[in-house]
């Protein structure tokens, strides 16, 4: 019995149970919802969210109120850069990927420097950076014609690539494996948990706290940039504010995956489930034929109810 309750305390298990429940609910409400093809499509959307959430996950794990509100801006910027550089031509893909990753890393680096060297709280730094990125998008958009996804990229995201799954899902699986390896089997991963759990102790044990924290923000920028490229492949062309929806959604995916915002514990496997959970929830609400107002109320209330399964703070009375 206690083994079962212990299992139910595992965020990943909770997320999987909730996913199954929501799929069942979706199927009941609109038959066809839980069909293989539809689940595959939902997974593609979840992969987009899940890849941004990987970066968000790392920043949050690093503790000290780590959070990255600028991911949405980086996603948009990356989608636009990629669209312009490939302009519908497969030959442009390598350059586009390179440019996007460099841009994502650059803004992540700025965030990291602001947070560590200037000691600006992450929420403030990345919020300010979001404003800058949004402004930058306007500048980029007005000057340069926006482009189109290369056909190969579009196919990679939405067409079958290997064993019946589209490329982006394989990419997501690879990212999941890389993250699991990074967090559990590398010194870097152990150090992330160490600074997230007790920064002072980590410093005293010779962990390069600032360098690691900067690296986390850089990685967050890079993951957001990768998402931007995939998003371009998903929608075919790029447009401003395309990434805005990922800002808070990525944080919620992380929380639904069992990583508390205080950092130092959790992991990416849960976050992947969390991203899928959130996407299913949004999707059910789109297919249910109710007013937008009703959708939003149900969505907000459901998020709150789901949160009760996770990350409730400790009671002050032990």
């Amino acid at each position, binding site marked *: 019995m206690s083994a079962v309750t212990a299992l139910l305390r595992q965020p990943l298990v909770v997320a999987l149970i909730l996913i199954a429940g929501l799929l069942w609910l979706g199927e009941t409400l609109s038959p066809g919802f839980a069909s293989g093809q539809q689940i595959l499509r939902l997974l593609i959307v979840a992969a987009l969210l899940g890849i941004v959430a990987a970066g968000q996950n790392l920043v949050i794990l690093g503790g000290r109120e780590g959070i990255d509100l600028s991911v949405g801006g980086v996603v948009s910027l990356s989608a636009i850069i990629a669209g312009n550089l490939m302009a519908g031509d497969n030959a442009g893909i390598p350059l586009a990927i390179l440019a996007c990753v460099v841009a994502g890393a650059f803004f992540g680096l700025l965030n990291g420097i602001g947070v560590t060297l200037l000691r600006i709280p992450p929420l403030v730094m990345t919020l300010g950076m979001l*404003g800058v990125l949004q*402004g930058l998008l306007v500048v980029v958009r007005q000057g340069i014609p926006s482009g189109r996804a290369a056909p190969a990229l579009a196919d990679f995201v939405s067409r079958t690539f290997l064993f019946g799954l589209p490329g982006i899902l394989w990419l997501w699986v690879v990212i999941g494996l890389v993250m699991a390896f990074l967090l559990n089997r590398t010194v870097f991963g152990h150090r992330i948990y160490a600074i997230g759990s007790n920064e002072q102790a980590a410093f005293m044990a010779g962990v390069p706290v600032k360098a690691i924290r900067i690296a986390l923000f850089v990685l967050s920028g890079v993951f957001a940039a990768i998402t931007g490229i995939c998003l371009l492949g998903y929608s075919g062309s790029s447009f401003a504010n395309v990434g805005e929806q990922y800002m808070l959604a990525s944080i919620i995916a992380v929380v639904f995956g069992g990583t508390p*915002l205080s950092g130092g514990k959790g992991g990416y496997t849960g976050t992947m489930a969390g991203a899928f959970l959130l996407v299913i929830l949004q999707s059910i609400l789109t297919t249910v034929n109710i007013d937008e*107002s009703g959708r939003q109320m149900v*969505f907000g209330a459901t998020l709150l109810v789901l949160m009760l399964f996770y*990350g*409730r703070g400790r009671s002050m009375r032990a």
Partner: protein
Amino acid sequence: MASIEAPARPRSSSAVKRAFERYPFLPALIILVVLIALNGWFQPRSLSLVGVTGLVKTYLALMLLAVAQTYVIYAGDIDLSAGAIVSLVNVVIVGVMAQWGGDGVTIVAALAIGLATGLACGIVNGIVVAALRLQAIVATFATSIFFTGLALYIQPVAGTPAPTAFWRTYGGRILEIPFVFHVVVLFAVLLAILVRTRLSLRLLAVGDGQQESYQSGLPVTAIRMGGYALCGVFAALAAFCITGDTASGDPLVGGKMTLFSIAAVVLGGSALSGGYGTVVGSVIGALIIGFINSLVFFVGTPSEWQNLVQGVAILLALMAGVLVGRRARA
């Protein structure tokens, strides 16, 4: 017996340090004065009575919302639903006024209902964050979606007009002085009163350490809920100003204000981690955002660069505020 290894900081000695410690909004004030001067330099008319009145009208709502956010941040919490509460209260009062006719009594009744709505939203946030112990950032984001849905339910389309009497009063003059300045004075008095309350002090104490405050015998949950309730009330007041300035209901009007309200609080020198800050600073922070926005236009920034320049200026102001404040107090 100086214990060096304790993280005690060197005692502040100079007058400057003491001033910064006592008035953490000083760096923000300096930034604000510079911005005002620059605005006047580039567009003298922006500092005329009309110009200033216009600016106050435009940013009074943000000032109030920044104050709302401050009370929550005092306790180390955050409210991402503040803007959604503004939208909800806005459509509620406009709806009530439209339903019952636009005479004076109705307007007062509508405002009372608006305040109650704001308070109720604040209490909901308080329950969710303080009593149910959900993480403030994500929980108030969820409630913001819920409140927005409710606002859309009440008024699916932007555009129900507010009664003329209401916005004419807000935009008009009393005793030859623009109405908004009366509001500003009332606002200042209200803040002066609130500073002296037990709740303010206890919110700050809770922000310094929830566990410590709880162990000291403070009703921490109730205090945090009090902060959210106060936030709801001030968000409702912000909604009144928005309604006065826009003369209509719009279920999405406050959405973008949330992040600005947080930026304003930080610009004003308050610590996001709680325990430290002033409401005056947040008001100054809101004004800084306003003056940056108008200055960007007055210096003749090309339109496609306006958002970027604003974003960079706000980021720099945020960084300058945090850095100068820390250096001055260190």
